[in-house]
């Protein structure tokens, strides 16, 4: 009998403590050992008795002795692979392809899992910047809803299958197909820039010459191609080079957000608007000027110098406006190679004075001006703009042309029409869909889904089991671009190698790899295919350099040589003008513009929580799309401006009910419907969000149509992060008063004559000696409101870097979004049908006199020596006093345990909640704490990056260099509007910008918070011939 049992049986002895009770020789020895939990102990000699004793003592001590731990298998890291330091982030270059245009990416990977995507600093497209798509793409790889393997549908049931089964199945199909040279087989593919795909495609077509290849993108650049064909006689890719332009006329083109080239456009545009040289502090001597003619109020249009530099008009009328601009140019002396047709009277929204001013400006800046046209404008507008550009000497200077990589292909619309017709006729026996989601995105009148049902064998390769997969016989999982070897080309043809960061999580394959299976090619791995396609060997120095650089030097195309041969243009223009004029409005009719959603693109990002919760740059809408209607139009139709009223939209025989968002600045006779929302099968996050505008988009009217709108009596809840009309008149007046103080604005002329812009730094008289932050490093940030276009890439970057959870639509409605930084959007101007809008990024200002710090009862938020306003999550008890007292409202509270469960069960007590999928946690940045419920959080200036760099610098016994630390927002910003650094170092960029006399701290004049984040005023460069905006200045408040 053991000593313990003896003691217990005597019944006389009592123990005072667990130690005393467990006072056995074995246990004593055990606790003397340094590592009592060593596994060998558990297996030695008297294991049973030891365990009994342990169980008894633990149970007696009141601990639960019966918890069963799950079996977990560990892989020992006994032999460390070369160049792999545990916990040290490694960066790799790669590329992401959207609609056939690649962005160069820099991927940060920790311990074999990619955690962050940023723009590749040396890539010609990105130069370090990125957009919200690129930033959010890292979330998709860890999306538990991604397609998880090969699925076969038979008899209405989905059966889990595998690649081997599919390959065996396909072999039999291929053998049969070879006999007919592939008759009856068709491939419907997305636009791929990948040389690998092209390479495999050629192999495939050689094997099955009769098989069809169709390419479809719902957001197509075909109008550009057709336009250049009209103007120059061949299809071209148009690339405006805004950095070389002094005058930019943007025609219905949302260049700066949601376009595959947005990053480049934004950077180039901002280059011409940077007022202060961050190295020398010298003031710029010139500034570009931006005019916009557009059918939807976009952030691109909001860059126009003031409200009088922007025309809002129906998309159909823009051809007339451009025609008028052409004739104005002609009248002012520009010689045009074409005759202009007679034009109808000026359409609604057209401003002849502005038109004349634009023409004069363009002429005065020949060779330094550019006209850019949106993809959804008809070809003739592109052609006319190209001819005007050419006449203005833009070709080769401010606009580049590249030969279209696939000149022979039909347009995307023609392709899908032709294919669907063949499918419906039963001519397609086997359909392979490579990427894309045509059931969702194809023109509604084609009824792609019904035609697909007639195809005897359909195979879909896609990253999600989506609407199309549900109707296909086979679903093949597509790998994420971070999971496979591939390649891609950017706008100018520069090729990049796509390298994998991680083994495919869900057994996916890349399109090239699938094509290799389909074509029964000997080389099956993406690695091999990419090398074959690029003609490089992995052993070559060039391959290694390309992997390192992220692109292959010298692969850019040379710009196409173009010559205007606009023989058909005049006639085409005349017919388009007639067509536009014929699109006559009946009494209740409005123009309906179909445009891509700035966050969902064509619907592919539907299951990305970050993008769903990213506020739209203009509407600040999250989790939904809405019909954007001018408030005046809405009021005239009896639509409430205060609630989101549902309207019925009728186009042709098609009907859609959708909520209204009253967007000031919309044309009065046109409404905009963003497509990409309304997915029915996109995963837990995206399914059921928004409204499917594709149901109204037909092949006859892919870009705009005439429709009828009727208000219904039902209402919908739109989750916006910033409200406007509901604020009411009293609030609006106050806002109008405040904006000049919050967003300092001035013109370029004013800046030249008075660089301080009359801004006086006020100093507070203090009763006590304040803390002086004058030693060590003192971190600060400068935000240039002139450069900031409000695209929101920084917001997603911050979310990715700092492990910020999404909270879901319900919580956004309650005002509990968690993003640490936001972009405030204010409309201003006396006329809300024609306002200006300004964008202002707001993150924690790291005030030296931080109002939040004084009021925290437990000292959870304190100031660091280097001037950071720090959050100690472990100490925070969540009184929310700091949040109340923060004048910038940048603090975010964990109202629920957002990180531990799913969004659906937020309201369930913690102990009962279903946990979050482990996969999601793999994206998390290991350098940043995951916050529990009940604590406050906020921007830290990416303190983890500061500290990591500090360690490196201190080990090398040197100071941190300027630019060595880049915050996530600054890194993402395509326009480099955000600059971070040490403000004590007088030569640092941030100090130079901060010390500009016009640089100001938000609310600092009022509250003396001494923010470390300062702003440079928004400078505009209005044409002196155009009326200045009638806005109050700062002094009048």
């Amino acid at each position, binding site marked *: 009998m053991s000593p313990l049992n003896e003691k217990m049986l005597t019944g006389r002895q009592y123990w005072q403590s667990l130690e005393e009770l467990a006072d056995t020789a074995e246990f004593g020895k055990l606790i003397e050992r340094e590592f009592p939990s060593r596994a060998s102990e558990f297996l030695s000699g008297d294991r049973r008795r030891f365990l009994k004793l342990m169980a008894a003592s633990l149970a007696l001590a009141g601990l639960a002795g019966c918890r069963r731990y799950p079996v977990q298998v560990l892989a020992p890291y006994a032999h460390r692979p070369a160049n792999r330091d545990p916990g040290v982030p490694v960066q790799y270059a790669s590329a992401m392809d959207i609609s056939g245009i690649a962005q160069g990416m820099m991927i940060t990977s920790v311990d074999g899992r990619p955690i962050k995507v940023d723009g590749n600093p040396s890539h010609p497209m990105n130069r370090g910047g990125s957009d919200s798509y690129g930033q959010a793409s890292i979330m998709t790889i860890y999306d538990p809803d991604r397609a998880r393997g090969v699925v076969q549908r038979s008899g209405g049931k989905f059966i889990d299958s595998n690649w081997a089964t599919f390959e065996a199945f396909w072999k039999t199909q291929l053998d049969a197909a070879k006999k007919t040279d592939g008759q009856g087989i068709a491939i419907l593919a997305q636009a791929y820039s990948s040389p690998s795909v092209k390479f495999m495609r050629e192999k495939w077509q050689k094997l099955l010459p009769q098989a069809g290849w169709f390419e479809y993108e719902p957001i197509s650049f075909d109008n550009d191609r057709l336009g250049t064909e009209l103007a120059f006689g061949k299809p071209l890719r148009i690339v405006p080079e805004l950095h070389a332009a002094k005058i930019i006329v943007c025609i219905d083109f949302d260049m700066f957000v949601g376009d595959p080239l947005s990053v480049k456009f934004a950077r180039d545009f901002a280059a011409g608007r940077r007022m202060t040289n961050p190295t020398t502090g010298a003031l710029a001597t010139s500034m570009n000027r931006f005019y916009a003619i557009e059918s939807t109020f976009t952030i691109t249009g909001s860059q126009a110098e003031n409200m009088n530099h922007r025309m809002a008009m129906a998309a159909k009328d823009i051809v007339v406006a451009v025609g008028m601009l052409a004739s104005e140019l002609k009248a002012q002396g520009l010689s045009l190679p074409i005759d202009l047709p007679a034009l109808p009277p000026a359409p609604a929204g057209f401003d002849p004075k502005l038109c004349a001013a634009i023409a004069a400006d363009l002429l005065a800046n020949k060779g330094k001006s550019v006209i850019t046209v949106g993809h959804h404008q008809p070809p003739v507008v592109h052609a006319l703009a190209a001819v005007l550009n050419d006449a203005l000497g833009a070709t080769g200077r401010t606009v580049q042309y590249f030969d279209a990589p696939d000149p022979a292909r039909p347009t995307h619309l023609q392709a899908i029409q032709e294919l669907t017709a063949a499918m419906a006729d039963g001519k397609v026996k086997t359909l392979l869909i490579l990427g894309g989601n045509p059931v969702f995105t194809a023109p509604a009148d084609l009824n792609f889904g019904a035609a697909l049902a007639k195809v005897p064998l359909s195979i879909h390769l896609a990253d999600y089991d989506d609407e199309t997969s549900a109707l296909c016989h086979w679903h093949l999982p597509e790998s994420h671009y971070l999971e496979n070897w591939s390649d891609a080309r950017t706008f100018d043809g520069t090729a990049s190698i796509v390298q994998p960061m991680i083994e495919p999580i869900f057994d996916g394959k890349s399109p090239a790899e699938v094509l290799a299976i389909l074509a029964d090619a000997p080389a099956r791995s993406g690695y091999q295919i990419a090398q074959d396609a690029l003609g490089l060997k992995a052993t070559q120095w060039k391959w290694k350099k390309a992997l390192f650089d992220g692109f292959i030097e010298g692969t850019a195309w040379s710009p196409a040589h173009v010559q205007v041969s606009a023989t058909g243009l005049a006639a085409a223009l005349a017919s388009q003008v007639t067509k536009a004029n014929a699109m006559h409005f009946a009494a209740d009719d409005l123009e309906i513009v179909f445009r891509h959603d700035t966050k969902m693109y064509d619907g592919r990002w539907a299951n990305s929580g970050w993008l769903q919760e990213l506020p739209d740059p203009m509407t600040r809408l999250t989790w939904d799309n809405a019909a954007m209607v001018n408030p005046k139009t809405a009021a005239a139709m009896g639509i409430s401006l205060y609630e989101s009223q549902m309207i019925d939209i009728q186009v042709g025989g098609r009907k859609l009910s959708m909520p209204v968002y009253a967007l000031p600045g919309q044309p009065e006779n046109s409404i905009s419907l963003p497509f990409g929302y309304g997915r029915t099968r996109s995963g837990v996050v995206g399914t059921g969000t928004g409204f499917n505008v594709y149901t109204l988009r037909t092949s006859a009217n892919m870009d705009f149509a005439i429709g009828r709108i009727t208000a219904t009596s039902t209402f919908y809840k739109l989750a916006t992060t910033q*409200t406007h009309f*509901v*604020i*009411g008149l*009293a*609030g609006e007046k*106050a*806002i109008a*008063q*405040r904006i000049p103080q*919050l967003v300092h604005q001035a013109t370029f002329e004013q800046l030249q004559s008075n660089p301080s812009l009359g801004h006086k730094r006020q100093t507070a008289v203090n009763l006590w000696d304040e803390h002086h932050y004058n030693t060590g490093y003192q971190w600060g940030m400068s935000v240039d409101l002139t450069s900031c276009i409000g695209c929101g890439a920084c917001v997603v970057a911050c979310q990715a870097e700092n492990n910020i959870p999404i909270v879901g639509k319900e919580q956004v409605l309650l*005002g*509990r979004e968690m993003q640490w930084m*936001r972009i*405030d*959007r*204010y409309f201003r101007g006396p006329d809300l049908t024609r306002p200006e809008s300004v964008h*202002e990024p*707001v993150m924690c200002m790291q005030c030296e006199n931080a*109002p939040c710090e*004084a*009021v*925290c*009862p*437990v*000292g959870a938020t304190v100031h660091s020596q280097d001037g950071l306003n720090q959050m100690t999550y472990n*100490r*925070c*008890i*969540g*009184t*929310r*006093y700091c*949040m*109340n*007292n923060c*004048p*910038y*409202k940048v603090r*975010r*509270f*964990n*109202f*629920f345990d957002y990180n531990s469960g799913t969004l659906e069960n*937020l*309201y*369930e*007590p*913690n*102990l009962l909640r279903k946990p979050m999928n482990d996969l999601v946690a793999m994206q998390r940045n290991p350098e940043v704490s995951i916050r*529990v*419920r*009940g*604590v*406050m959080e906020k921007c830290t200036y990416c303190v983890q990056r500061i500290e990591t760099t500090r360690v490196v610098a201190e080990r090398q016994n040197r100071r941190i260099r300027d630019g060595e630390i880049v915050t996530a927002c600054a890194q993402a910003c395509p326009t480099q509007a955000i600059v971070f650094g040490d403000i004590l170092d007088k030569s640092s960029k941030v100090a130079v910008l901060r010390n500009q006399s016009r640089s100001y701290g*938000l*609310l600092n004049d*009022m*509250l003396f918070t001494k923010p470390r984040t300062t702003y440079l005023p928004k400078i505009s460069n209005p044409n002196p011939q155009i009326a200045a905006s009638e806005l109050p200045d700062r002094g009048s*408040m």
Partner: protein
Amino acid sequence: MTTIEIPQGRLDTGFDNTAEDCIHRDPLVTGEATYHAITKIVTATPEARRAPKIWYVCFTISLMLLCLLFLTIAYQVFTGVGVWGNNSPVGWGFDIINFVFWVGIAHAGTMISAILLMFRQKWRTGINRFAEATTVFSVLCAGIYPAIHVGRPWFAYWLIPYPNVMGVWPNFYSPLLWDALAVGTYSTVSFLFWYFGMVPDLATLRDRAKTRTRHTLYGLFSLGWRGSARHWLIYERGMLILGGVATALVLAVSSTVSTDFAVSQIPGWHETIFPPYFTVGAIFSGFATVIALAIPARELFGLKDVITLRHMDNLAKLMLVLASIVAYIYLIEFFIAYYSGNPYERFAYYNREFGPYWWLGWAMLFCNGVVPQLFWFKKARTTWWLALPVALIALFGMWTERFSIIVTSIQRDFLPSSWHMYRPSIVDIGMFAGSFGLFFTLFLLFCRFLPMVAMSEVKSILPQSHTHLPADCKAEA
């Protein structure tokens, strides 16, 4: 003069003792004003075999609400603050509104017992016990909120400075710390004040007890009181000290609570007038509560001879004074907002009356500033069906005042981009209702089992207590 019927078989008729005559003061106790009669009146309810039927009804409802309170608290603690309507920018909603509301109500008891004691207002004896009880119970209701409103309630004790191995002290600059200390002190002192004052009366109940249980329990809580002169001496001294401390606390607690707002920099919170403003408002709401509770208590428990019309009249007069001060402060606030020239300040007050919560803003002005002006009329002061609604409206008005200050100010502060509406959730409302459950459960238990009127003190103001006075003055004491 009201014509409520007095139950037969008790003391004689009620008597209108509200006449203001400096020569002949009306007695403060009507009916048969003898020591024994007082004892009989006060002990009637604790000693009754059964309480009035309405007591059971009220108690059942209160208990149910109390259960609701426990359920909502449990749900909130296990789920998160998100179950409430709070958001960003409105970090504090019902939690702090109700905290300030209950703290305010708590002020009447101490005001009556301590400050009126200092001013030698003898009439207070009829109502002080009763008012102190409201203090103790409402401080308890108030105290729940700061503890559970934090994100991690299990760490709420970090608010209190205590030596700990972490070596971390709270931030002594933070008003929330002052708040925790002030409310903690206040609840302790007001409880002691209430309980010590009750000891002689508990002893009376003990002495009259007819069952063993009653004898034991009352005996236990009367702490061996024998009524000796030494006991009385110590008792009087102790009460005087506690009274002194409590007097300071009446002024300090709401002032401290007001610093939660005044120390911040939110327009509408950042006001130097807040300490007196909150104190006056608190006492005002406290008196409203005492009136609202005294009216039914007089009726139900036959206390009309002890809590006489004069008491009601005096309470109403005090309310009138306080309401007028409150109204004055409202006007000053608006004037200063205008006069400051600070656009943010101006907007905060404009928004209070014309923003989305305009009706609460106007309700505040109307209920607290206008309605109590009815008490200029004696009829309103002495007629229960006029006084009761005025008191209840004032209570509602004071709640809307807290809403207007707390929510309407932060709902729209500096940056318009962050403006957001606040709507309480069902849990918020449930918890507020539940806190009434806690209050009334305790209050009804108090009415049923404890002496609602300070017998010993009331006896001291009977004419026969003043044997040293000339005979003709006795009636006027």
